[in-house]
């Protein structure tokens, strides 16, 4: 008599192998690389109602690549009492060395003749985003989304908004004197800013004139990196 075939054992073993492999390749959501610099990009940061704080960081290891779903944790504090946790993500996407790259958090909206981009402000907010810059003509604006992982699809869907001519992703152009001015290891997190009384852990930094905003990062080997800016 032949032994009975171990059907269930085979199925379980097969499924277990697939699940185990998928788990093996799953990234850790929180990563703490050694950073060589943490700073606030005051060229684009707007510390006012409806504004955005842009925090950037450079890992020491330029081969560092953050995966989808991973964040590098920083904390934002204000002297008026607000405190928010934020997660640095990549400045440029995707993380692969080959192919085209774009800024992970931003896209640009161009409007048709006779339409003003400010009319789609509610839709930008509904997308968990804010305008970064609006052209004085109202014909175009750059939009920052605070959750970057679906940026391309959402930028594509924005083409269906009323009055929108087209949307496009943004890149980084290096000054000729500074070749390779960015690295795929560079990190960024935009944090929404409003004015008013502090509300802890609501994901928005409430600021008042004269506040000092401090961003801190705990280095993996000990020590803390800090960046500060004063609210004008």
């Amino acid at each position, binding site marked *: 008599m032949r032994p009975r075939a*171990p*059907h269930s054992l085979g199925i379980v073993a097969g499924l277990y192998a*697939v699940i185990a492999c998928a788990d093996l390749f799953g990234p850790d959501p929180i990563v703490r690389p050694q950073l060589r610099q943490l700073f606030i990009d005051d060229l684009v940061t707007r510390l006012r109602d409806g504004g955005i704080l842009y925090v950037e960081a450079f890992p020491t290891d330029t081969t560092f690549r953050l995966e989808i779903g991973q964040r590098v944790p920083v904390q934002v504090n204000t002297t008026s009492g607000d405190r928010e946790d934020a997660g640095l993500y990549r400045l440029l996407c995707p993380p692969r060395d*080959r*192919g*085209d790259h774009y800024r992970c958090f931003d896209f640009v909206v161009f409007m048709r003749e006779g339409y003003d981009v400010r009319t789609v402000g509610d839709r930008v907010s509904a997308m968990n985003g804010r305008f970064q810059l609006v052209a004085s003509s109202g014909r175009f604006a750059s939009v920052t989304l605070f959750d970057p992982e679906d940026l391309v*699809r959402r930028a594509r869907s924005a083409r269906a908004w009323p009055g929108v001519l087209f949307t496009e992703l943004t890149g980084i152009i290096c000054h000729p004197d500074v070749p390779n001015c960015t690295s795929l290891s560079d990190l960024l997190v935009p944090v929404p800013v409003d004015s008013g009384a502090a509300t802890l852990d609501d994901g928005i930094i409430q600021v008042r004139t004269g506040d000092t905003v401090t961003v801190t990062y705990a280095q993996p080997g000990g020590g803390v990196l800090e960046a500060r800016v004063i609210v004008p």
Partner: protein
Amino acid sequence: MDHSHRLAGVIGALLVLPARPLISQTCAGSPSFSETRFRAAASFASYAYATALGASFSTGGKFYATFSGGTSYDREQDARTYDLSLTGGADITDNSARIYFCPLALLSISLGPYDYLLSQTDYRYIDVAVGVGVAVPIRSSRFSMIPGMGGRVARIRVSRIPSEAERQQGVPQWTQSDTYWHFSAGLGFVFKQTLTIKPEFTLVTGLVPPGEPNTFAAPFGRDENDLSVGVTVAFNFGRRSR
């Protein structure tokens, strides 16, 4: 002899060389076509930058052919390709039928991604590959395990196709090509010579390093030394009359 002529010669040789009585599909981790005439399969794979879903239909006797269609999606870039492929192959074994050697030739075409990164630019991938697989079936009356592995050398050609509007703005069309290796290792669990569940690893290697010309010439969603995992569920049907 140029590259395309060499490739055609190898494919021709692979289709002509096998002289023994053959049963097929063993290296694909599935039961042979000695009992049934057809196989339908569904597959899922997770690559470094994309996920792929596919369905395939195979038929054959001494030789087999597989036609497959599917789609690959890179969520981060919201980029999708529509993939079609045709595989021809055979299983070669000695009389003991303990070890199988399986030459194969593959042609695949991926259409897309379209409007890549909102740029109004489309892409098209064409991949031609030849290779060989090895499998060692472990059988009982109703259940078999078929561990197998394979390697193939592939030539990929990626074309960038700008839209009419982009062409008028001077955006060029270009094509990049590269040759790379594709390795696989899997374990087929076969039930009653009918149902197959096969988890599999695949590896792509030998691509041009980043920073050099032709770095776009890489399989969609994959990268150098990208070890991916996938699973195929297949069903054999159309029992042969004795």
